[in-house]
């Protein structure tokens, strides 16, 4: 059913390899600025939940970057679809739509993992070493699975590259700032906490942070991420089916 996924994944890896230096540089810029501005300059003496603000910030940045990089696969798909018409090459090939979705989602997850490694390296440069347990990595994998699947689904629905930029502005950027990246969601009023609990990034940030601090993350957050990931993955499959005119 998913025979051929590796061809899609392989193509994305080739592109990734060709742009590796540029991508690593771009993956470093935002986290580095956040670490300097918020972690070092502003929050140098602030303690949050018993940790320095930089220690608090790193897991948040991991959650945010894994989301944005996994979601970034949507832009790649759109460029391939609208500008280079490469999507037709995949559509005309004897591979199932499930294989296509699997390949693209894995490519998004790979980008996310690369970005996470960059942040952990930057964190180490700032002297932050947290507990990178299997639960830490599992939360990252689930988070990137959710957003890579969502990215493939939305990339099939948008009609132009401009629509994609709008989704980023209205969905991804607000979520990046409100999903527990920079501050504990618990400091907000209860109604806001309930609202933010609907966002997958809130669960990802909480789980990644808890695991990184050596605490036990809430299993329900993992369950929500997995559930949403499966729903978005199936939605992506449905959207690829619909992409034929």
């Amino acid at each position, binding site marked *: 059913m998913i*025979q*051929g996924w*590796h*061809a*899609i994944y*392989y*193509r994305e890896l*080739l*592109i990734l390899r*060709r*742009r590796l230096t540029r991508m690593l540089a771009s993956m470093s810029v935002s986290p580095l600025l956040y670490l300097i501005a918020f972690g070092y300059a502003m929050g140098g003496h602030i303690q949050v939940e018993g940790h320095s603000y930089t220690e608090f910030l790193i897991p948040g940045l991991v959650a945010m970057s894994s989301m944005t990089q996994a979601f970034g696969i949507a832009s790649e798909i759109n460029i*391939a679809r609208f500008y*280079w*018409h*490469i999507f*037709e*090459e*995949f*559509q*005309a*090939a*004897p*591979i*199932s739509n499930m294989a296509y979705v699997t390949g693209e989602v894995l490519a998004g997850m790979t980008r996310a993992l690369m970005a996470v490694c960059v942040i952990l390296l930057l964190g180490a440069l700032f002297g932050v070493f947290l507990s990178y347990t299997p639960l830490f990595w599992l939360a990252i994998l689930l988070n990137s699975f959710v957003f890579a699947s969502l990215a493939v689904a939305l990339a099939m629905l948008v009609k132009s590259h401009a629509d994609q930029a709008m989704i980023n502005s209205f969905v991804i950027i607000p979520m990046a700032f409100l999903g527990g990246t920079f501050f504990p969601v618990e400091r907000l009023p209860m109604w806001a906490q309930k609202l933010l609990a609907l966002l997958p990034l809130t669960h990802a940030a909480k789980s990644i942070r808890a695991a990184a601090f050596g605490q036990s993350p809430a299993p329900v957050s993992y369950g929500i991420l997995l559930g949403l990931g499966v729903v978005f993955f199936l939605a992506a499959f449905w959207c690829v089916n619909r992409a*034929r*005119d």
Partner: protein
Amino acid sequence: MIRIESLKKNYKKVQALKGVSLHVPQGQLFAYLGPNGAGKTTTIRILTGLTKLTSGAAFLNGYHIEKDTLAAKRQFGLVPQSANLDQELTVFENLDVHGRLFHMRRKDRRRKIDELLGYIDLLDRKGTPSKQLSGGMKRRVMIARALVHSPKILFLDEPTVGLDAKIRRRIWALIKKIQQSGTTIFLTTHYIEEAEFLADRVAFLDEGIIVAIDTPRHLISRIGAWAIDRVSQGEMETQYFRTQEEARAYIAEQEDSFSLRRVNLEDAFLALTGKKVK
């Protein structure tokens, strides 16, 4: 072998195909000729699984394109109208990804890619990023890519559009060479001379309907062998004659001077559809 039965395609209120039926036997080079918007690309898109049909049926080597989709897709290679090479990948990588999409083994892929790049005289460009290729080279690489998995059918959608005359002829020679290897070729074009030079059989498509289908020679002979053009009240008028003698006799009776020429496929299209192919 390609078989299409009463194929219809509606885009909202527009009926792009109004019941097209045709049969292309194995090894034939079939040209699908018509003006822009006639439904040529829609037909190819349906046959290659890129577009859903509204009604009717289509078979590629006996496989129903909607019911046996994956098997049908293994039968053909597609060269689409727009250049769709992966700009960031090299020539080899473009072909290699294609081979992987068709589940080819590494050894077979490498052998076939070298063979095809030699075939299109671009073996020395194997490691060149495709964005550095000229328009003609890109088109040749696209043709090679479509052949990596050794398809029995090749769909060429306007393969020489935008190319200069010299490169166009080089592509024609390549297409002829591919046909000689036994591949069925389904070619859409709005270049009359391309269809006339290449095709064993031609279909004239106009507004979603096939108005005529036959060999180029038979289509031409339907309207005559010789033509005389003249401009009357700003409009070009053409008259057709069975023999050169008939045409010369007609010229002798006229006061104006005329040029006599052989009837070509464009005349046949014009006479049968009342339209120019643009």
